[in-house]
């Protein structure tokens, strides 16, 4: 990274917007950062955050489990046990069986894998769109800005849940990849807004002006100077998007507007299980529990990343001066709104 000095100097180079004095003494910050690269510093801060670390471990374990479970589980997700209908958890069927003898454990693992994969892929697509739109709108200004922001406004008025649900009949029978693309197309608006705001301030910074006066083309400036300087926020936002997308996807699938029948996701499993939820709770409790745990893990990671990448977010607040690594971040910088948008 060529411009680490801007985001890297903890509390030094970042504009001190508020009138409040910095709570953390500067020499302490410098002592902490001396002789350490930014990457190492961020990693160290992240690893010190027990909650975030737990979240990461849980998420990785769950994903690995869902991917490898076909290797050791006694049943496959599309197999039927004709000797066991609607049975509770047992040694042979760890999570029980459904009305038609499907193994709930295998199905849940399959659904978990689908939901997590969809969440990760969508977040990747969304951050690409958001950074291009946000950086272009902020950097070029004028009608580009107005046009793009108008589209953003429009998509905020029209809940993405609604649009995707309306388009979904056209997707019946097509692959889940198309569904991922659709989700990604409607998940980037708020991030783009925030990135645009950051670009507006970055554009006036000396190093960007210098590059411009040296005759660097706009595309290069955006790629080399604008985007790397927004990397922290982008990383945090990807995490948040993963969580919110998983919720959106399961919500759509719950209504039958998402992942389509031969395939399963946590949403379709919960829907199928919930019809008899009151008498056979194992049909949806495992899927539901894993869903909550995974999203919770993602959210903890997001918070940990925010603490590690953006310690200034805490400035000017009543913070204990001793080390308090496990404290939740006080002011989420990106609206959490999207997180629950789906459901």
């Amino acid at each position, binding site marked *: 990274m060529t411009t680490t000095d801007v985001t890297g100097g903890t509390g030094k180079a970042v504009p001190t917007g508020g009138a409040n004095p910095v709570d953390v003494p500067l020499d302490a910050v410098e002592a902490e950062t001396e002789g350490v690269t930014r990457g190492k510093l961020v990693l160290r801060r992240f690893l010190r955050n027990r909650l975030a670390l737990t979240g990461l471990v849980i998420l990785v374990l769950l994903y690995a489990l869902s991917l490898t479970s076909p290797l050791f589980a006694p049943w496959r997700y599309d197999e039927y046990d004709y000797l066991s209908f609607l049975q509770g958890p047992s040694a042979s069927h760890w999570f029980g069986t459904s009305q038609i003898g499907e193994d709930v454990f295998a199905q849940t693992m399959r659904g978990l894998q689908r939901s997590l994969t969809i969440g990760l892929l969508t977040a990747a697509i969304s951050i690409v769109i958001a950074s291009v739109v946000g950086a272009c709108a902020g950097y070029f200004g004028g009608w580009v800005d107005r046009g793009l922001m108008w589209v953003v406004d*429009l998509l905020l008025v*029209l809940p993405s849940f609604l649009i995707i649900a*309306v*388009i979904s*009949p056209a997707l019946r029978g097509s692959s889940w990849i198309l569904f991922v693309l659709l989700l990604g197309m409607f998940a980037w608006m708020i991030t783009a807004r925030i990135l645009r705001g950051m670009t507006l301030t970055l554009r006036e910074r000396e190093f960007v002006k210098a590059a411009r006066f040296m005759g660097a083309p706009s595309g290069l400036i955006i790629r080399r100077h604008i985007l790397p300087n927004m990397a922290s926020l982008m990383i945090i936002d990807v995490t948040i998007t993963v969580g919110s997308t998983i919720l959106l996807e399961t*919500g759509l699938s719950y209504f039958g507007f998402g992942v389509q029948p031969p395939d399963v996701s946590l949403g379709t499993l919960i829907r199928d299980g919930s019809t008899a939820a009151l008498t056979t709770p194992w049909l949806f409790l495992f899927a539901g529990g894993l869903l909550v745990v995974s999203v919770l893990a993602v959210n903890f990671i997001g918070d940990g990343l925010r603490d590690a990448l953006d310690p200034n977010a805490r400035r000017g607040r*009543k913070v204990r001066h001793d080390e308090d690594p496990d404290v939740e971040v006080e002011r989420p910088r990106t609206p959490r709104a999207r997180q629950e948008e789906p459901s």
Partner: protein
Amino acid sequence: MARFLARRLVNYVALCLVATFLAFALAAMTFDPVGKLQARNPPPPQATIDAKRAELRLDEPIPQRFVLWLGDAVQGDFGRTVVNQSISDELPRRIGVSLRLFLLGTVVGIGLGVILGVASAIRQYRFSDYAATFFSFVILSTPVFLLGLLLKYLALELNSAAGAQLLVFTGETTPGFQGGFWAALVDRVQHLVLPTLTIALGQIAYYSRYQRSAMLDVLGSDFLRTAQAKGLTRRKALFKHGLRTALVPMATLFAFGFGLLITGGTFTERIFGWYGMGDWLVYGIEQDDTNITATVTLFVAVLVLISGWLSDVFYALLDPRVRLR
């Protein structure tokens, strides 16, 4: 200020129209309302299908269909459904059901959310603060449909433990209910509790997180110290000076929170069998019904924009600097 608000209003109305058009066009392109008719066995004569197509204006260009629909909609006629029922006849009842849910959910959600947020900010790093934080995180990670199902499950346990039908989880009122005003009120409340809770829990978690951080910001500020220095008790300083300032960011969040509420409402209505707008949207999509979809979209867009406007008004009420400008 007035001109600014007026310009915002024009922009809002334009957004509403474009959003509705977008939904209408997407629905018209993806839906296949005669598919079910064609799939019938034995197949109906071609003339029947053609008549249905003509009735639904399927062969006209989409922009033209939209303009015709909008022209009627402005006069209060939102068209007919695929099965030829009037949308306008059903609309007021559905809107009533949805708005009741939204209003109660918002009031309970914001009220309790603000209280919870302030409480955990004042008692920062105590057990109650950690408990509230944990609660918010879990709720924010739970989709509304799961929350609704779990509450239903708990209510059933509660009912069987109490040996009586304390909470009801289907419909918004008992069909054919006979009884006096008070009995009817009790009946309504029994139906209301669970859906309202389903919607409000998410709102409480959402608002309390932000209220907590806003309040923490204020707690460390100089003006609060000054207020106490000039002789106000801590309680008075906190509530007269602190809370008011800490509420300002909430006004901006309100618009976001409301959008979230609408989608959450769709799930809640479906799970608890309330025939509101959200339920109608799902029904409309399942029935390949363009008119229902467009009507619900218009309703949602108008609500989102009203909440955006209300958000501006709250802001002006809470922050005198906005009013003076």
